[in-house]
């Protein structure tokens, strides 16, 4: 059973941008696309741990600010020639609020 927790207002995250949520196990990046979809991924590139929340968001992808790896926000998979996957977490928008699945966030280490 998922347990949705209210993280922030959608407006708190810039369109084509991201904000970070602190958890006991490290930071999760919450992205908002040009069309107001939200995604939550580990804020760490599998290549050199670059902070993905600081990357440029285009379509439903983000480019890591350190070495330009591009990740699909939905699947967390690296695009193009690079290989690697970032963990993703369920996220959704309801009545203008961004919700994350607390159950999955707590289970981050185990997952």
């Amino acid at each position, binding site marked *: 059973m998922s347990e949705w*927790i209210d*993280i*922030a207002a959608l407006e*708190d*995250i*810039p*369109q*084509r*941008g991201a*904000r*970070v*949520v*602190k*958890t*006991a*196990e490290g*930071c999760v990046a*919450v992205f908002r*696309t*040009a*069309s*107001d*979809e939200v995604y939550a991924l580990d804020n760490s590139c599998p290549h*050199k*741990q*670059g*902070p993905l929340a*600081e*990357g*440029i*968001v*285009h*379509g*439903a*992808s983000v*480019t890591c*600010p*350190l070495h*330009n790896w*591009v990740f699909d926000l*939905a*699947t967390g998979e690296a695009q193009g020639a690079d290989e690697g996957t970032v963990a993703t977490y369920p996220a959704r928008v309801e009545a203008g609020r961004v919700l994350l699945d*607390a159950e999955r*966030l*707590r289970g981050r280490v185990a997952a």
Partner: protein
Amino acid sequence: MTKKLVIIGAGMASGRALEHLLKEDPDWDVTLFNAEPRGNYDRIMLSPVLAGDKSYEDIVIHDSAWYEENGVTCRFGEKVETIDRAAKTVTAANGDVLEYDKLLIGTGSKPFIIPLPGHDLDGVIAYRDLEDTELMMSMTDQNKVVVIGGGLLGLEAAAGMAARGVDVTVVHIMGHLMERQLDEAAGYLLRKALIDKGITVMCSANSKEIVGEDGKVKALMLDDGTELPCDLLVMAVGIRPNVALAEASGIAVGRGIHVDDQMITSDENILAVGECVEHNGAVFGLVAPLYDQAKVVAKTLLGEEATFVQKDLSTKLKVTGCDLFSAGDFAEGEGREDIVFRDPARGVYRRLVLEDNVIVGTVMYGDTADSNWFFGMIKDKTDISDMRETVIFGPAYQGGAPQDPLAAVAALPDDAEICGCNGISKGDIVAAINEGATDLGAIRAETKASGSCGTCTGLVEQVLATTLGDAFVMPTAQPMCGCTDMTHEDVRRMIKSQELKSMAAVMQECGWKTSCGCHVCRPALNYYLLADWPVEYQDDPQSRFINERKHANIQKDGTFSVVPRMWGGITNANELRAIADAADKFDVPTVKVTGGQRIDLLGVKGEDLPAIWKDLNAAGMVSGHAYSKGLRTVKTCVGTDHCRFGTQDSTGLGIKLEKALWGSWTPHKVKLGVSGCPRNCAEATCKDIGIVCVDSGFEIGVGGAAGMDVKEVQAFAKVETEQEVMDVCIAFTQLYREHAKYLDRMYKFIDKFGLEWCQERVIDDLENRKALVDRFELSQSIYRKDPWAEHVEDKAETYQPVANLTLEAAE
């Protein structure tokens, strides 16, 4: 036995319900109340009435003869004050009490009025009924009108009045028009079409206050201080279900009046229909579902089985002669892909959103002829894998061989115009080719075709290809990125010649293949737009690399480095003390003296940035832009102040240059050096611009570098006064800003354009030098300020985590 039916509200939904009901069973005793002093008319057609294409009589649905024939008792211009559900009566405004067996509520919706100061002034209206329309129709070419709201209703009001010659301004709070129905690209095209009709469109504009005089509206004030004078102000920002009467009677309401699938409210004898209802969480504004509801209402009253089902909706609209269509869900999403087609010449934009090879949403602008076909595929969930390559072109292109674009060009007659700017026909180009011009450059030189705005470059290349056959090799100019086939130079030429002032405009007019670009093109476009249109274009932080978005250099561990500016490399005890205090306070692990004569605080945490900037600001220091494609440092030696060899005040000149140039954005980083004598202690000869002072004046060199390539400056000019040094440096920087490719250092720019080309414009032509300086100053009037102070003020919050779950997770 005759049953008594009371209907509150004579709108399109209740009117349709009445038609269905009386057709099946004319035995009802119907009383119809309406607050408006008239019966049922077609509200959707108010826009043509406003535009003068139709009269009120044309849009009446039920006239008095109809009501009479059908035995409906009309009480128009009368409100119902209360409903007594226990007694099953309604009380009219004049005190009459009427019994009912069944009550139908069709109170529709109310326009939402933003409670701005002054919203109750005379001349502030909504766009809802005939009275509003008539007021708008009274406006003439002597009047100014402001419309708040860039949705369908607002734009129709604006266009209707503009057609009457009224000076109309649309103020819209969102970044693009009709953001619910259209994406940004289509919104851009719509805006362009409205501007062509003489309507002023202001997006991202926040209304602050309505200014009045003697109780009457005079102007709208925006929160940036802009004042828009107006004689009438139309608020078209949305509608809300009108539930007041129903709520007072105690039946269940949410956003609208709750109804079940049979359109019955929480009271079994009361039904509701139209824009006032809420069904399964949804409220309704388009006419199709309202008419479906009306059918169900009639059946329920007749005691027959019927169920209202919400259907997939599409919106096909004609806003002021512009065709638009949107359907389904066109947001980006999990596993979704875009197919985008743009035809800049025809102003056409189409976007399909695919999920698992099925079209789930679409936005179309300009050409909606195929919209039904696409909508059909959305509803049927058609698998389009077999026609993926061509589906975007519509049904006409399915099943046959893909069209060869060259065939169309080959079929053009000789007198077909290819280059509109210069009036060059296909025949002229073919003739030039036959005389030996076999590539694009030669065609441009011979005929001028594609040499002005560049829009027809692709066509000219196709003429070359069809004329030369295999002998023609398409040029392999490097496109900007995967989103476009155009080069940096092509795009920049388009931005200037077509006056493209927004990213959406560039992407549409240059035929971008993606909906919002990528990390390669967006920073470049952002730079070109702000350099070419400093006043009109708004810098987009989300299109900037992190360093320029957060005004600090990201380090490999995700921390940042902070470098305050030290003008000309000069500092003092106070500044040094503040830097030392900041290093202590924020646990800065590394403090380093840089090669640019200043101090770098390395390893600052992202969330500490605003706080450390605030402390440095307090000591009088500003951002050093050590992170930017912009002016970095002006390195100096001590010159005549202290040095026994110094010939000029190199430190003072360096500080003046830095104060003039700081804050400006450039294609790549720019570093300057000023040495007080030819011994060159400031290493000025390997800077982008280097000044070496001599007894008789100043030697200015350009195009040095000491990075991946090591370059010595090339002698550019020798001048006598400091003012000339300033003007030449500023003018050359502006020339570089206006012409260089994004991420080309100055030396690369000079290699491409030629040193002499630069000298002609900056050294020889004094008028042009002045014009360059003026344009630089215009841009600097916006960008010469400390971004740290601004972020401390407005954006400090965004540097913090948006939420902290460390406690939550520890439980």
